[in-house]
Structure formats: structure tokens, C-alpha cells
């Protein structure tokens, strides 16, 4: 079974990699690139509690929760790709001596922190502030892959074949640091994240309260040698009473035990054991509840409320001055958006023009790492709705291209409006004709029109300048003009979020 488990881990990690690779324009087709994010019960429950909705495939997360209720944290040991990655790093970094390994795998009360964390996150979610995605392991891995690993691979490919498009993301250094830290900490303690931090693991662990089967130790066979501890990645103390809320069901201990004292058993099978002539079974029932004091639980609840209140009090969803918070087309109004966005980064990965970026300050603290369009990196392709297709929670709706273009009622989806900076725009400020913006404006009829004006140049001759203007009724805020403006240091035409159709109240006539 240990071999089976390794096979599953390899399979799911490979599948994760393949699905991330498929999450690109031209490759996506109908592939279910969201399934890993959907399988996270934390994402499913968090989004449900925040938005009262289970979108698209997120029911898989509830299925995983049901599975865990019966079998234990098999997700952590067999499926979770981050877990597999950390398991690999831990294995590579483990010390030689069994004594050292036993010491590192000792259960610590710090492992209870993750339960408090998940409680705080879910409490905040209940108040509509969904920050669970920042700590969800799948979302973390997806975000890191999209923002750090895939671009790195692209750079490597570019060095060799000079063909891969370059991708860049703001905040990549931050995400890379966090990811490296998560990997590096395994050198100190194996599967550090899984043991001490992972709120998904905590949720699944809490769900093992009435687990119907677990790895159990036969005290009669056990010689207390402690070798099982030396290979347990979950620090679930198999040599005493195994903690099902920590155990990953990875089968390491069962495989290692020289006395065959450990075995996975259904709780019903207590009479089916036979030990030589002794029909008595001294199997100790597993411990299934984390030992948390009421005080710490209440503290976590209060923290959750505080997080929610604190973030909402910043007034992110109601404030003015949101010009850089340009959301992708199909995004829901801001309050509903923040109730659903997992900050997973799938939309950023699939976006063909690299315009979707993780927000740093554009959307406030609450919107940290949520997707915003930053025209310094790209523009929104006219006939593309890929971001909506890959969003697991529906924070970005699955709009059709016809809906985005405004067929049939003639009202296209606008993500903002472009404004000319007449102090920089060449025909306005430098008496030179240009009009690149009008040429590239993709809508039909164009949203940029010109008014001819005759001016006196400094050498005394007259010239006709074609001065461009934005027609706000037609501009959809795609940012092609901003991207193509020859003044690359600070474009003379810039898109601002006002006029976006998703927020009925921020429109103007």
C-alpha cells in the first residue's frame, strides 16, 4: 500500500503539472484545470460560507470532505500536490540516523495552531471576507506555479529555443519568497506546512472525528522500538495512540514496523483479528480530536471576526479612488467578487496577454493577490474570455464572447474607460501627429475619434493636427491604446476603472 500511495502521489503531482501546463490559450479546450482547487474542502467550504454558493465543480471539495469523514486524511497523503512536493523535499533532507528522525517527527502542540487558523479563516468568511485562498495549499501552489515557476520555465525555454513568450508578474518576488520558505522549512521539520500551518489539513483533520477506519497499533505486538515514528511525516505519534486528525494515512509506519503491529483497520473489524491463540484484541482506539482548549478556540473565533471587521472597515468595496482596480471582464461587483475570489492565480496563468496581475495595493488589503488588469504588462484581448472559463468559484463569471462583445443588445462589457493625458499626448502637447491609439483600438466603430485643428508651428508654418478624443460610450477599457502608446515610460492614454459595467453605480452617462 505504501507503493500504491507513492504511485498516487506521483500521479496527482504529474496531473497537477499537466493541468497547469494546459491552462493556456490554445491548449485549454475543455480540460478541467480547476479540479485540484475544487477538491480542496477549505476552498469549497470557505466560498460556501462567504457567498452561499457552491460554484461549478466545487462540490468535489465537499466530496473530499465526505471521503475524509470515512477514511481519514487520505487527501493529504495521497492527493495533495503541495503535500507531495513537501514530502519529496523532506525526504531529500532527512537525516541519516533514526534517532534524529524520531526526534524531528515528535508530535508538538504547535500542530494545533493550524486548527485555530482554519477556525479564524472560516469565521472571517462567514462575514463575507474570504482570505482562505491565501492559505489554501492548492491555491498557494497554483499561485506560485502561475507567477513564479511557469515564467521561470518560460525563461529557461527562451534561453534555449528563443521562442517562449515572456511573462512577468508584479509581486513575483514576494510569492517566490513565500514559496521558497514553505519548501525550505521542510529541512527543519518534515512537512512543516502540513503539520503546523495548513488550514485545509486542519479542516480535514477535524472531519476525522468519526472516521470509520484508521491505522491502529496492536499493543501486544508492539515492542515500543519507535521505528514507526522515524518515518511518520505527519507526526501523528503512531507509537502511542495515533492521532487520526494528523495522520496522512501514508502507510509508512505500517511498512516500517518490524513486528507488524500497525495496520489499517475498519473500526468494525475488531473481532476479526487473531493473534496466535489469543482472540482478544488490544487494539487501542485512535484519538480523533485535537486537544484544544476552549480559550484558544474562542480566541480563534474572535480573531476571525477581527480580521473580517478590520478588512471591511477599510471600506474597500465602497470607497472612491479605485482607479487602478480594473477587474477582468465578467468579474462580479466588488463585494460579491471578494466573497468568492480564492486568489488562486489560474486566471493570471491562462491570460494570453499577461495583463492579469496579482493586486498589491490596487484593491486594498482585502484584495491582496486578487486579479487586476495592469496595462503596463498587457491589454485585454477583445475576443477572449479565458479568465472566466477557468475561475473555479465564479468570481469571474463564465461569459461567452458574444456577451462580452455586447451581442445582441449592444451593451458590451466594459472594464473601465481610457483617459487622455493631454500634457503628454503628442498631438496635444508636442504639436506632432501620432494616432497609434486610434489605429489599434479594437472596437468597431472605434472608441477614439479625432478632431482636426490647424495650428501655427514654431517655425511659422501651419499644420493640421489630428487630436484624439475618447468616446466614453464606445470605450470598453481594454487598454490596447495604453499598451501601444509610444510613450512607454508613462503612456499618454491610460485606462481607469470608472465606467465598468459590473458596478452599476460607478457608471456615468
Amino acid at each position, binding site marked *: 500500500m505504501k507503493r500504491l500511495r507513492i504511485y498516487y502521489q506521483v500521479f496527482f503531482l504529474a496531473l497537477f503539472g499537466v493541468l497547469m501546463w494546459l491552462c493556456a490559450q490554445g491548449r485549454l479546450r475543455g480540460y478541467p484545470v480547476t479540479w485540484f482547487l475544487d477538491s480542496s474542502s477549505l476552498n469549497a467550504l470557505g466560498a460556501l460560507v462567504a457567498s*452561499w454558493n457552491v460554484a461549478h465543480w466545487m462540490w468535489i*471539495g465537499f466530496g473530499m470532505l465526505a471521503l475524509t*469523514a*470515512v477514511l481519514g486524511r487520505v487527501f493529504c497523503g495521497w492527493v495533495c500536490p503541495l503535500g507531495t512536493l513537501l514530502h519529496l523535499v523532506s525526504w531529500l533532507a532527512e537525516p541519516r540516523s533514526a534517532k534524529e528522525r524520531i526526534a524531528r517527527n515528535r508530535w508538538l502542540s504547535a500542530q494545533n495552531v493550524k486548527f485555530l487558523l482554519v477556525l479564524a479563516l472560516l469565521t472571517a468568511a462567514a462575514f463575507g471576507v474570504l482570505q482562505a485562498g491565501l492559505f489554501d495549499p492548492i491555491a498557494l501552489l497554483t499561485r506560485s506555479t502561475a507567477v513564479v515557476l511557469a515564467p521561470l520555465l518560460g525563461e529557461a525555454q527562451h534561453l534555449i529555443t528563443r521562442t517562449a513568450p515572456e511573462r512577468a508578474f508584479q509581486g513575483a518576488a514576494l510569492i517566490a519568497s513565500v514559496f521558497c520558505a514553505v519548501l525550505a522549512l521542510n529541512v527543519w521539520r518534515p512537512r512543516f506546512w502540513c503539520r503546523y500551518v495548513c488550514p485545509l489539513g486542519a479542516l480535514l483533520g477535524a472531519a476525522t472525528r*468519526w472516521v*470509520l477506519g484508521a491505522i491502529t497499533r496492536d499493543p501486544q505486538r508492539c515492542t515500543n522500538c519507535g521505528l514507526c515514528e522515524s518515518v511518520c511525516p505527519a507526526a501523528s505519534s503512531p507509537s502511542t495512540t495515533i492521532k487520526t486528525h494528523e495522520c496522512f494515512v501514508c502507510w509508512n509506519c505500517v511498512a516500517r514496523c518490524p513486528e507488524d503491529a500497525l495496520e489499517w483497520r475498519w473500526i468494525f473489524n*475488531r473481532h476479526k483479528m487473531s493473534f496466535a491463540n489469543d482472540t482478544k484484541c488490544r*487494539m487501542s482506539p485512535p484519538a480523533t480530536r485535537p486537544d484544544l482548549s476552549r480559550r484558544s478556540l474562542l480566541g480563534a473565533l474572535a480573531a476571525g471576526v477581527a480580521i473580517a471587521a478590520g478588512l471591511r472597515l477599510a471600506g474597500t468595496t465602497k470607497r472612491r479612488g479605485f482607479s487602478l482596480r480594473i477587474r477582468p471582464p465578467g468579474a462580479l461587483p466588488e463585494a460579491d467578487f471578494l466573497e468568492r475570489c480564492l486568489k488562486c492565480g489560474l486566471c493570471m496563468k491562462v491570460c494570453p496577454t499577461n495583463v492579469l496581475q496579482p493586486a498589491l495595493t490596487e484593491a486594498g488589503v482585502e484584495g491582496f493577490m486578487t486579479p487586476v488588469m495592469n496595462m503596463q504588462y498587457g491589454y485585454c484581448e477583445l475576443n477572449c474570455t479565458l479568465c472566466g472559463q477557468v475561475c473555479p468559484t465564479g468570481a469571474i463569471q463564465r461569459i461567452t464572447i458574444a456577451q462580452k462583445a455586447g451581442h445582441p443588445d449592444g451593451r458590451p462589457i466594459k472594464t473601465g474607460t481610457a483617459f487622455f493625458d493631454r500634457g503628454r499626448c503628442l498631438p496635444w502637447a508636442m504639436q506632432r501627429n501620432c494616432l497609434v491609439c486610434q489605429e489599434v483600438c479594437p472596437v468597431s466603430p472605434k472608441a477614439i475619434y479625432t478632431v482636426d485643428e490647424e495650428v501655427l508651428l514654431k517655425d511659422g508654418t501651419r499644420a493640421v493636427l489630428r487630436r484624439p478624443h475618447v468616446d466614453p460610450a464606445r470605450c470598453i477599457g481594454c487598454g490596447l491604446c495604453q499598451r501601444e502608446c509610444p510613450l512607454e515610460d508613462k503612456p499618454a492614454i491610460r485606462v481607469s476603472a470608472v465606467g465598468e459595467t459590473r458596478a452599476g453605480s460607478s457608471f456615468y452617462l
Partner: protein
Amino acid sequence: MKSERDTGALTRRELLKRTAGAVALVTLAGGAGWFFHNRRLAPPPRDAATIASFAVPDTRGMVAVARGTQPAALVAAALAELGGIKRFIKPGDRVLIKPNCAFDRPPHLGATTSPDVLAEVVRQCTAAGAEVRVTDNPINNAEGCFAKTGLRAATERAGGSVWLPAPGMFGAARVGTLKIPTWDVMLAPLLWATKLIGVPAAKTHNLCHVSLAMKNWYGFLGHGRARMHQAIHEVIADLATFITPTLVIMDGTRLLLRNGPTGGSVADVAPGNVVAAGTDQVALDALACTWLNVRPDDVEFIHLAAQLKLGSPDWHALPHFKEVTV
């Protein structure tokens, strides 16, 4: 059966408890996943209320003009030419009256409806057996406006009551077809009323030439109406689609000829000595333009409203057009 406690194994009761717990958790998780699946994928769009027409049947195309110096008498005469208030208001009706109370200016500056005119309208309606409420949503403080303009005193003197705007009274409604399909409006009074009478003051307006019957409904709009300035004519035409009143009584006793809509100086005001009443707000607007020395042809929103068939600007040609001197 021998007690199993000393084997350390699970008792049957514990077994049952566990199984029940597991089953419950599985059902809960599965049930939640199934029940909430795509239940609220996108938040539901706000339902916009539709305000029904307040017009009384068989009263289309009626306008009556009364000239004289006594405001109350003018109102009474104009109404009489239309067949009397009883033709429009029945006992038990809930009548909402919308005067122009937009600015906190005293009545002699001509920026708001004359209190004498309003008092007479309210009196007529209460005499007809209706419950009368008067409302408006000014830019400035509503309490102050109703006091300074004398409209609160006039209303209460005549047996009506003032309904001041409050945040909870607003909601989304369908407005028009040209520029604003829906907007936040003062919904509660509109849903309460069975009859609606507009009593605008005749004023010129800096932006849209004149502020008369159709523009009067602006006072029902909620937040964000500053943006309307960008397409003011289409918006006013939309307002005429939004509201079809029972009656409009155009207060021409004082005319604000310059610096409208707020005016501010007596020099801007001239005595008009005229009141018009009718059911065609487009005709009344066109007629009132002539009082203000504005050509109806120059006023775009009158054209737009006429195109939308909300009324006819040719008041002469209406089926029921009467003029009387008091």
C-alpha cells in the same frame, strides 16, 4: 457478552456513535455540496419596480389656462375648466403631490412653487375626500427647504402632510428608454400613492433652457443624479416616461426669467399671473415656454418627449384646450 472494555477495543455503543457521526458528516458535506450547487452563481440583479401610470381614464389631452391675480382662484378656475377636481380625485384616494421644493429660497424669488398655489391644490384634494401627502427630494436639507419655501405651512394649513425623504424610502425603479433604464428613486411615496399631481414652478434653466412639468420629476431621483447633466435632455424625456401623472398644475404666478434654476434675485422674477392645469405634460411644458419667452422649438427635451409620444407640444390642437380669465 463479556465486557470488552478491558480489551481496549471499541464498545458497540461507541461503534454506533462513530458510525452515526460519520454518516451524518458525509450527509452534511454531500448535502451542502448538492444543495448549494450554483445556487447563487451570480448575485441576483436588483429588481426594479415599475411605476404604473397615475392617469385617470379618458382624460388625455386636456389643458386649461387661467389668467388673473389671485393664485387660489386661478387654480380653482383652471381645475373647473377641466371638469372639476372630482373628475380626477375620488374619496379615499391617496394623493401624492410633487411641488418644486428644490431649494431653500423664500417663495418670492420664484425658484420654487408658490405656497398659495400648493395650498389650493391640497385643499381641493382634501375637499374631494382624499388623503394628501406632499414630497420632494431636494439637494439641500429637506426640512429646511420645506420650511423656507413656505410649502410645509401651506400643506398643513390645507389639510395635507409633508413626507420628508429618508434613506429607507429609496429603491430601484425602471425609468426610461433613452438614457437611464433604471435608477434609484424615492420609491415608497410612489408605491403608496393612487394619484399623483405635479405642481411645478415655471422657471428658466441654465442647462436645459426651462424647468417645468417634466423636469419636476427629477425630485424623485436618488443618489448620483449629478451625472445627469451630461445628457440632460434625454434624461428629462426619460422622466416623462417614468411618470405619467394624474394632473399637472403649472404655477405661473411668478416666473423665473433669468439665472434659473436657483435664481436668487428679485430682478430675475416677473409676475406671471397665470396658472395652467392639464393632463398632457408635454403640451403644458410647451405652453409654459411661451410665458418664459423661450421658443418651445428650441427645447430639445420637448421634441424628444413628443417623439416618444408622451404628449403633444401643440397645445392649441389638443382635444380639450380652454382659456379663461379670472
